[in-house]
């Protein structure tokens, strides 16, 4: 692999709350290569959106963040506020979920994009750049004078993508960019992101709970549970032949249509994703794991290699290697 553009090393993020510390991310490492799309999968509370916030240092004040986020070797977590502001738009930017709340409802969408360009002086003529950006995301230039409520969900998501691209970043973090959208509009937005990624040679971190989307968009992916990566590897491989029982359950939750193993046989996991304030001992997945062993309640679990570029955090993987 070429030199990573972004390298996340042993990232820990702990929120403060009245009820005590909330460890949302508990030691996550991954690399993002230039022009690569890397997927982060997991359910609510697994820490995936917290990682997005940590990469850009946009977490609530008082949140405890340790580890390294190296952008071309420079640690984002150690940057001065001024340097960070520049990096947030011109190096890394983010497309949030919930397109309605991420836009200012009383400002024309074109002005919201122009503002970002003017602040960072990345283009001589902000108006022309806005028109260009709208074209890039497949909207007519006249939409610039619309307010957010005049746009459909899909159009608002396109505006957010245009906003994220305003200052020519190298890395785009897409946090559930298609979650609230209809399937057809989802397909349109995914097609757009894929085209942008190719044409602008963007590197992308794609965060979602929907594994089937990831296997379609990403080359490599990581699956998170309770603040840690539990499996990583090539996206197709991870979902077609999961090594971790949690990945297997997630993959089965969205069955292939036409796969008779799942016809009239929905499959899920008992229980619920753990509360970050109360993470089970040993392997945090053990209370829900269909194949847990006695040792799983106390065993130290880490990511173990299981084939080429594949790692999984399950003692059964170790057993397999020993055999």
């Amino acid at each position: 692999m070429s030199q990573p553009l972004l390298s996340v090393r042993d990232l820990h993020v702990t929120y403060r709350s009245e009820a005590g510390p909330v460890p949302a991310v508990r030691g996550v490492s991954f690399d993002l290569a230039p022009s690569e799309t890397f997927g982060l999968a997991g359910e609510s509370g697994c820490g995936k959106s917290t990682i997005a916030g940590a990469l850009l240092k946009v977490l609530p004040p008082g949140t405890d963040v340790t580890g390294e986020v190296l952008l071309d070797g420079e640690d984002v977590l150690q940057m001065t506020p001024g340097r960070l502001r520049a990096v947030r738009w011109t190096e890394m930017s983010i497309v949030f979920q919930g397109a309605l709340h991420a836009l200012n409802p009383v400002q024309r969408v074109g002005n919201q994009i122009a503002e970002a360009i003017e602040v960072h002086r990345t283009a001589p003529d902000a108006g022309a750049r806005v028109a260009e950006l709208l074209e890039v995301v497949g909207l007519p230039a006249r939409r610039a004078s619309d307010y957010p409520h005049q746009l459909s969900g899909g159009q608002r998501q396109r505006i957010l993508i245009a906003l994220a691209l305003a200052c020519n970043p190298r890395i785009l973090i897409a946090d559930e960019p298609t979650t609230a959208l209809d399937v057809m509009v989802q397909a349109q937005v995914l097609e757009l992101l894929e085209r942008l990624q190719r044409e602008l040679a963007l590197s992308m971190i794609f965060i979602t709970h929907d594994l089937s989307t990831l296997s379609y968009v990403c080359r490599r992916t990581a699956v998170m549970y309770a603040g840690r990566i539990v499996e990583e590897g090539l996206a197709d491989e991870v979902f077609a032949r999961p090594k971790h029982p949690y990945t297997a359950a997630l993959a089965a939750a969205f069955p292939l249509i036409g796969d008779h193993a799942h016809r009239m046989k929905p499959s899920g996991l008992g229980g619920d994703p753990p509360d970050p304030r109360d993470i089970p001992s040993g392997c945090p997945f053990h209370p829900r794991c269909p194949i847990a062993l006695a040792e799983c309640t106390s065993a130290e679990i880490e990511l173990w290699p299981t084939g080429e570029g594949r790692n999984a955090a399950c003692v059964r993987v170790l057993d397999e290697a020993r055999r």
Partner: protein
Amino acid sequence: MSDILLETRGLAVRFPGRHGEIARAVDGVDLVVRRGEVLALVGESGCGKTTLARTIMGLERPAEGEVVYEGEPIRYDAGFLRPYRGKVQMVFQDPLGALNPRQTVYEAVAEGLRIQKLPGDEAMRVADALARAGLRPPGRFLRLYPYELSGGQRQRVVIAGAMVLNPTLLVADEPVSSLDASVRGEILKLMLELVRDAGVTILVVTHDLGLAWNIADRIAVMYLGRIVEEGPAEELLSHPRHPYTRALLSVVPEVEEMEQQILQGEAPDPTRIPSGCRFHPRCPLVASGEAARLGIEERCRYDDLALHDVAPEHRAACHAL
């Protein structure tokens, strides 16, 4: 006993739009729900599927046509609707919104019993409904408030609130769309159990074709106020006939080996339903010139059409078929 539990005949529901125009949300729907089946009503937002479900519940009144339950057209007086809403229960999407935050689980489930003034031991019925919805032992949950429950547990409470009345029909609007992936399968399993063990019939309203593959016996695909294709789930998903169904299936990530047909634009506006086949402005057959080659383009543009048989039990509304 007829195997048809409920049907809609020529059903139309209209709403006044913002600028005085009329939105034809449901625009001529004949839908049959058979006893003991799981029927999935599938479509994108704005296609009218939720309005159709609400009309079946008696929550909206049709401008034309009727809803027929066990052979009898439903009426809109309290004397009819109250018992009807005991037998036909709706499970709404967003279980947090559907539950009153200041009501305990017990109160939430007992509420329907009190409204219906059903005789018998309330506490026992509530406990039984919770157990049937998979909240076991029920005693553990009775005194909890919604915020103390997980998303999956909340959805089970909502289902228990419906099941406590021993309904014949459950109308479930996107029952798993707000749930975590690992929990989703458990709720779908529960729905299948209710059909098998409690003999309930389920109409599930969803945009999710994977869900239909998981639990539906039959599927009806809705586009802009009409059913455009219906048939047995397996047949319809393996051999979709209507170009809209084909496009919809082609963009579902859970379908392999189908060339993507991404329709441009969003679901169109029910205040301006196109002439002819209502799908023609977005139809790949028309856009590619295929309709012209088949010599049907004029009909696509100007002749409205009804569902017709394309295979046993399988019907679609397309001039090309």
